[in-house]
């Protein structure tokens, strides 16, 4: 059995009276790519935001590397080894590309280690090196997505959660971004990926969970679910 890195137990989250997550459970093992797929409003972003402390659950908990994250303040979670690439990228537009990356390493002290990570990011995304001094707000959508991923990598996370990395990108760029996610796995990162683009998400994932209106309705290895008739109809448009 592989080592479990992240465990989500009976997680329930509400926005006022609206229950966004109705008690979901799933886990991510070390070295895996796990995809959470589902339609708009299924609760995917809510799930990720609760994992990294931006939202607090009504009940249930999140265990990362054996630590309960439920009551850890959001700003302390990144230094525990959990990086979050938020929906819509949320890069700092008024800062340079380099400063955005540096902020990714905000909680780290060792200059040498930060420099090492910086090199890794520039190797993965040569475009960011070219535009190092440019204001992040002037980058194209695809470059901004790469910057958002690079920024998360600068915290040297063990696990990285990505929220809709393909949103608003051209098909060519979508393919590029998914190749990069695969590369992250080869670099030893564990990945939790939330996507509306189910086809792409399933193509690189090891396992898949299907989220529907706040509940997990299906789960299994990606290779199995990709041939499931219901999934084909609902998410793959076949």
């Amino acid at each position, binding site marked *: 059995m592989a080592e479990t890195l992240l465990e989500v137990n009976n997680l329930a989250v509400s926005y006022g009276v609206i229950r966004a997550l109705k008690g979901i459970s799933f886990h991510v093992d070390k070295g895996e790519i796990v995809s959470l797929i589902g339609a708009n409003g299924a609760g995917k972003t809510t799930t990720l935001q609760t994992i990294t402390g931006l939202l607090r659950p009504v009940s249930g908990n999140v265990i990362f590397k054996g630590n309960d994250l439920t009551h850890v303040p959001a700003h302390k*979670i990144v230094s525990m080894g959990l*990086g979050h690439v938020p929906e819509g990228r949320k890069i700092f537009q*008024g800062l340079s590309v380099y400063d955005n990356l540096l902020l990714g390493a905000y909680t780290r002290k060792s200059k040498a280690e930060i420099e090492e990570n910086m090199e890794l990011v520039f190797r993965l995304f040569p475009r960011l090196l070219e535009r190092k001094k440019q204001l992040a707000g002037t980058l194209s959508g695809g470059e901004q997505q790469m910057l958002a991923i690079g920024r998360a990598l600068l915290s040297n996370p063990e696990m990285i959660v990505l929220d809709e990395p393909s949103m608003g990108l051209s098909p060519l760029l979508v393919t590029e971004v998914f190749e990069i996610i695969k590369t992250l796995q080869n670099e030893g990162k564990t990945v939790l990926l939330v996507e509306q683009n189910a086809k792409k998400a399933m193509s690189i994932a090891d396992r898949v969970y299907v989220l529907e209106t706040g509940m997990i309705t299906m789960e299994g290895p990606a290779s199995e679910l990709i041939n499931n008739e219901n999934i084909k109809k609902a998410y793959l448009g076949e």
Partner: protein
Amino acid sequence: MDFLETLLNGLSLGGTYAIIALGYTMVYGIAKMLNFAHGDIIMVGSYIIWFTFLRLDCHPSISIALAIICCVILGIVIERLAYRPLRGAPSLAVLITAIGVSSLLQGLPAILDTISKSSNNSALKEKLSGILNPLPIQDMVHTNKLVLFGVEFPISISALVTILITVATMIALTVFIKKSKTGKAMVAVSENRDAALLMGIHINKIIVVTFAIGSALAGVAATLMLTKGTPASPSFGALPGIVAFSAAVIGGIGSIPGAALGGFLIGILETFCNANSALSPYRNAIVFSVLIIILLFKPSGILGNPRREKV
């Protein structure tokens, strides 16, 4: 009056407004709230300088340092007690609280006055009345013109120092925000709090630093205003506060060069109105009309840029 002299005096008055406007703009840009009590922190600073300098015979530099330190502490305490509990509350609630804090501070001298009148302790009475009846600090007013190499320049030493301090402060703040780690974290918090949290930035810490800087600027502003000969009073910071806030809005609130530009603009405008006896009674009306006109054409201020999210 000589045009150049009026312009330089305008720059000096504008410098004071700019320093106050910088305080408003820093707090607004990062904490996303209007600290209406900013002008009253200046007032507290002015009392501290007047009392330590004229009553306790402190060296002026000690008085000024004490005032800045007290303003910083006051700013941090206000943030902790009044504003932090309202983080995430509707902005109207925060605004009303800020106005409340402002009134409270303006009421402090009156509270001390009541204590002084009802007290039987004559030593305390004397001390309090020593604080409560401020005199203008003549020793800090240098109306002499600057003379260099035997040439008299059309600017007083106070005015020149004000302009220099304003420019130096603006440069220092810009460098701090652009180059230091804390400064970059401030930009991050100002742009997107959630994303800043994901970087591991402790939002409350950054907001405290912001209030500390803003309040230190209030202490500097108190000093500059006293050098113009105004005595401390409960309403010392109220009108300059409103004018400087308008300056920050004209320049583009949240923008540091904008605050300086707006401050200088209003200062010069006001000084020219004052120099003309026909216009001088209408100077506030003129200043605020210009504010309205600028905002009609550029609602986000001269240097403010309405940011759009790229999707």
